[in-house]
């Protein structure tokens, strides 16, 4: 069964297009990365899947049903994001009680234990928390809710490295214990990318790529070495980045054709794997990159 299905979905805010014909099918109990640059349309897509926003065009189905105004979908899907506004007069402990009443599978014991571990007092109000603590609390509520579809939009913002690493471990443990579809959107992927089984890259409101995360990563390699050698390889494949490093030396990030691999140290070149973060950033970067923009803006001064 396809859990989440977007068919040619568009979304406009006034004259601004957030989604322009997004088609994407997600199925199975997997952790899926929804990647894209700022303004790519990731958050809008997740908000539509959660039934918070109504698409301007196209169709969306979550568990086979239009999520907008669906009581069933609202009870089986939760979107965790930075701007969550819990009832302001409830303390954190009371919010967890409220979540328990609303979501039948909510694991309050897990939530309270995590709260204690991360040093978040349950008598505090949500508005009193720092940005990182707020996001940690939000993530805890999402994990403990145990809905069949769990969506996180930029969940790790503001968290320190220790908290980040711990909460991601909990996320993985929760996924193993209670397999479900988890969508994780973001653009800062340090520590997260190894969790992804699939990635969907959204760019300018459309799907740019959807597939297995490891296969996607393996398509991209970084080569460095003598400039002439680097340029010779680049002339035969698609180069996403090319820059001179030391005099006579160059570095490039290239996309290999399907099934092709470059042997390490091919032709005196150094070949290294590319983190997912770098790969999708290079893939979605405007031609010429920031160097071209700056050079054009300053007329080469």
């Amino acid at each position, binding site marked *: 069964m396809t859990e989440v299905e977007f068919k040619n979905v568009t979304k406009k805010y006034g004259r601004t297009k957030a989604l322009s014909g997004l088609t994407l099918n997600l199925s199975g109990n997997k952790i899926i990365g929804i990647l894209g640059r700022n303004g790519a349309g990731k958050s809008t897509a997740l908000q539509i899947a959660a039934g918070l926003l109504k698409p301007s065009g196209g169709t969306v189905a979550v568990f086979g049903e239009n999520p907008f105004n*669906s*009581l069933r979908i609202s009870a089986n899907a939760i979107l965790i994001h930075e701007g969550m506004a819990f*009832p302001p007069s409830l303390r954190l402990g*009371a919010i967890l009680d409220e979540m328990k009443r*609303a979501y039948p599978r909510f694991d309050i014991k897990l939530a309270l234990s995590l709260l204690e571990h991360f040093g978040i007092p349950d008598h505090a109000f949500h508005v009193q928390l720092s940005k990182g603590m707020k996001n940690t609390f939000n993530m805890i509520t999402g994990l403990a809710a145990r809905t069949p579809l769990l969506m996180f939009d930029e969940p790790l913002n503001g968290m320190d490295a220790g908290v980040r690493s711990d909460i991601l471990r909990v996320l993985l443990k929760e996924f193993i214990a209670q397999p479900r579809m988890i969508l994780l959107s973001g653009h800062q992927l340090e520590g997260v990318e190894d969790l992804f089984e699939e990635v969907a890259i959204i760019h300018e409101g459309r799907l740019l790529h959807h597939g297995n995360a490891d296969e996607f990563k393996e398509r991209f390699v970084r080569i460095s070495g003598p400039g002439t050698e680097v340029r010779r390889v680049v002339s035969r494949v698609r180069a996403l980045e090319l820059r001179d490093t030391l005099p006579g030396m160059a570095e490039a990030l290239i996309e290999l054709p399907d099934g092709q691999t470059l042997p390490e140290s091919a032709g005196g070149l150094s070949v290294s794997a590319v983190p997912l973060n770098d790969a999708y950033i290079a893939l979605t970067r405007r031609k010429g990159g920031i160097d071209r923009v700056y050079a054009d803006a300053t007329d080469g001064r």
Partner: protein
Amino acid sequence: MSMLTQPTAGEAVRNQFARNLYGRSGILGSLLALQVIGVAIAFFGSNGFGTADGQVSINVVDYSANPVIGLTLLWALIAPLYLSGRDSLRSDFIFPGSRATRHIGNSLYFAALVLAGSLTTTLAFMASVLFAAIPGEPLILPGGGVGYYVSLFVVLSGCCLLVASGSYFAGTLFSVSRFAAFALFALVLVFFRLLANVDPPAILVGIFKGPAALFFLKTLLGAVLFFIGAIIAGSRQEVKE
């Protein structure tokens, strides 16, 4: 985890009602605070009239709970604007529910609060008699006995319900589309302008004229229409960041 939860609309409405009660204690607190202020104002009474000549001095002080009534009506006007606003919408949609169950839960919450508020106002009205008794001056009690207070409760409940539902409808419409809200407001002004020659207050009085029970039924009908209007207006409302 392929088993999906099958929630019922009744559960969602109950949860919305309970969340308002526990999670928005400020709404109930503001009603209580305003009523206490009203009682405090009522305690000092207002001078009715007085006369004095060489032989006799008469000073009439009017003790009534009118300030409590006024402040309760003010609360009924303002509180629904908060609950129908975007912040409340964003907060409500963290929890399972549809737009319809949210509005129904909110409507029932206001109905319950209005009844409670009207009851306390009626009790304050009864208690205001005691304020006159405390200084030990001669007392003129309002006529009508228990029936008078029952009528007061019924009429006040109807008025508050109508005001609260109208305010909730206006707030919902405003948060959905400011243009639609201003257009409706302009339409109402035009309507009253057209009725200027036929004395609109007289028409309103005519609509709501009659015994207390009938008055309550008419206001209840008006309130139900306003709440249905809010459900319809809010049925396509988006939850924006």
